[in-house]
C-alpha cells in the first residue's frame, strides 16, 4: 500500500498544491493591501465629506499602485544609532505570521491551501510573532517614541490575546475541532453568531481590533502622542512592509471572524468564495468605520477594559456555552 510510488505521488500532489497555494496567497496579500488602502482612503474621504483620491486613475484606483512604486523608489534610511540587526529584522519578522496564517483560511470548500487539523492554533501561535516584531522594531530604533510605542504594543497585545482566545474557545467547544474547515462545516445549521455566540463574536471583534492596532486601540502608533509610534524611524519600503502587514492583519482578523462566527464561505446562491469575501470585507469596513468615528482610548482604560470587562464576560460566556452543550 505505502509504496515509494505512492509517497512520490502524494508528495508531488502536495508540491503542486503548495506552489499554487503560495502564488494564490501572495496575489491575495498584495491585491488585498492595494484594495484596502484605496478603500480606506475612499471610506475616510466619504465619511469626512470629501471625495478622497480621484485624479490618479479612474476614481483614484491607481493611487495605491503609485504609492507602492513611490515607496519602492524611496531611500532606505538607517539611522546611525540603531541596533542594526534588530532594525533590519523587524520588517521581515512582521511578515511571517501574515503569510503563514493564510495557509489555513478556507476561502471556499476546496479553496484552502491546506486544512491543518490544528488550524486556529497555527494562526494564534504565529500571530504572537507580530508582537515580537513590533517590540524589535521599537527597541532596535533607539528612538524614545518608538520604544514607548513598542512597550505599549506588547502590553496591549498580551492583554487582548486572552479575550481573543476565550472568545474563540466556545466555538471550538461547539465544533469539537480546531480545523477551520470543520468549524465552517459545523455552521451548516446556522451561524455561530446566532447560536448563542453573539457575545463571543463581540468580544472577538473588539479584541481583534485591538490586536491589529486600529483605532480606538491604535496606541502603539498614536499619532498625537507618539508621532508615528514604533515605526517612527522606518522609511521607504521597510515602512511599507509594516503598512502591508497591518492591512493584511485586518483582513486575517476579519477572515477568522467570518470563519468562526459568520459561517465562513456558507451562503445561498452565490459561490462560497464570494460569500467569504463579502462577509470579510464587511467586517473590514466596520473596522475602518471605527477608525474614522472614535477617538482613541487611554492606555489604562485599554488594559483595564480587557481585564475588567472582556475577560470576565468571556469566562461567563464560556461557562454558559459549556452548560448549554450539556442540556
Amino acid at each position, binding site marked *: 500500500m505505502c509504496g515509494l510510488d505512492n509517497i512520490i505521488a*502524494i508528495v508531488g500532489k502536495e508540491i503542486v498544491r503548495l506552489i499554487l497555494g503560495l502564488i494564490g496567497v501572495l496575489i491575495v496579500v498584495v491585491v488585498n493591501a492595494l484594495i484596502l488602502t484605496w478603500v480606506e482612503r475612499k471610506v475616510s474621504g466619504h465619511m469626512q465629506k470629501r471625495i478622497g483620491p480621484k485624479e490618479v486613475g479612474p476614481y483614484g484606483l491607481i493611487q495605491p499602485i503609485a504609492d507602492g512604486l513611490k515607496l519602492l523608489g524611496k*531611500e532606505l534610511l538607517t539611522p546611525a544609532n540603531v541596533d542594526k540587526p534588530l532594525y533590519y529584522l523587524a520588517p521581515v519578522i512582521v511578515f511571517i505570521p501574515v503569510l503563514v496564517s493564510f495557509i489555513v483560511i478556507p476561502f471556499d470548500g476546496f479553496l484552502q491551501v491546506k486544512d491543518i487539523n490544528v488550524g486556529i492554533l497555527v494562526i494564534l501561535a504565529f500571530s504572537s510573532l507580530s508582537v515580537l516584531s513590533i517590540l524589535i522594531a521599537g527597541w532596535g530604533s533607539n528612538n*524614545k517614541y518608538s520604544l514607548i510605542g513598542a512597550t505599549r504594543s506588547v*502590553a496591549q497585545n498580551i492583554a487582548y490575546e486572552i479575550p481573543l482566545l476565550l472568545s474563540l*474557545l466556545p466555538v471550538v*467547544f461547539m465544533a469539537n475541532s480546531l480545523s477551520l474547515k470543520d468549524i465552517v462545516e459545523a455552521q451548516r445549521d446556522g451561524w455561530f453568531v446566532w447560536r448563542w455566540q453573539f457575545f463571543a463574536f463581540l468580544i472577538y471583534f473588539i479584541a481583534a481590533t485591538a490586536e491589529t492596532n486600529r483605532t480606538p486601540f491604535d496606541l502603539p502608533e498614536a499619532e498625537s502622542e507618539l508621532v508615528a509610534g514604533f515605526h517612527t524611524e522606518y522609511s521607504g519600503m521597510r515602512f511599507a*512592509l509594516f503598512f502591508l502587514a497591518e492591512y493584511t492583519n485586518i483582513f486575517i482578523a476579519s477572515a477568522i471572524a467570518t470563519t468562526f462566527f459568520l459561517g465562513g464561505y456558507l451562503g445561498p446562491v452565490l459561490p462560497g468564495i464570494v460569500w467569504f469575501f463579502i462577509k470579510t470585507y464587511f467586517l473590514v469596513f466596520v473596522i475602518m468605520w471605527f477608525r474614522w468615528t472614535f477617538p482613541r482610548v487611554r492606555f489604562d482604560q485599554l488594559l483595564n477594559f480587557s481585564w*475588567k470587562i472582556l475577560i470576565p464576560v468571556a*469566562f461567563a460566556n464560556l461557562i454558559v456555552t459549556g452548560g448549554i452543550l450539556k442540556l
Partner: protein
Amino acid sequence: METLIEFSYVVVFAIVATVFTIAPVVISRLIAPRTIGDRTFTTYECGIQPFGSAWTRHSVVYYIYALIFIAFDVDILYLFPAALSYTRQGNVYEFYSLLVFILILVLAIIYAWGKGVFTWKRKSLS
C-alpha cells in the same frame, strides 16, 4: 506523515515570507537615490537632538500585566484540548470540571483586582 506535510507548508510559507520581504528592500536599495546631510542619520525627536539614548532605565508600568498574562495564557491553552474532547449531552462531570477550572481563574482576576493592579494612580515627584 500527514503532520510532516502540514508543517512543511508552514516552513515553506515562512521562508517565502522572508524572501518576499527582503526582495523589495533590495530592489529599493538599487533604484533609490540617496542624500546624506550632516544630521540625516541622527535619531528623530521632533527636530531636536535627543538627550541621551533611548536605551536607558525605563519604568514599564505594565510589567504586572505581563505577569498575569503569562499565568492566564498558559491556563487557557489547557482549555483547547478540553474543548476538543467536550461531548454533547450527558456526562455532566465534564461541565463541572470546566466550571471549577474557570472559577479558579476568575478568583485570580478578583485577587488581582482587589490588590489594586488595575488602578493607575497619578504619580507625583515629591
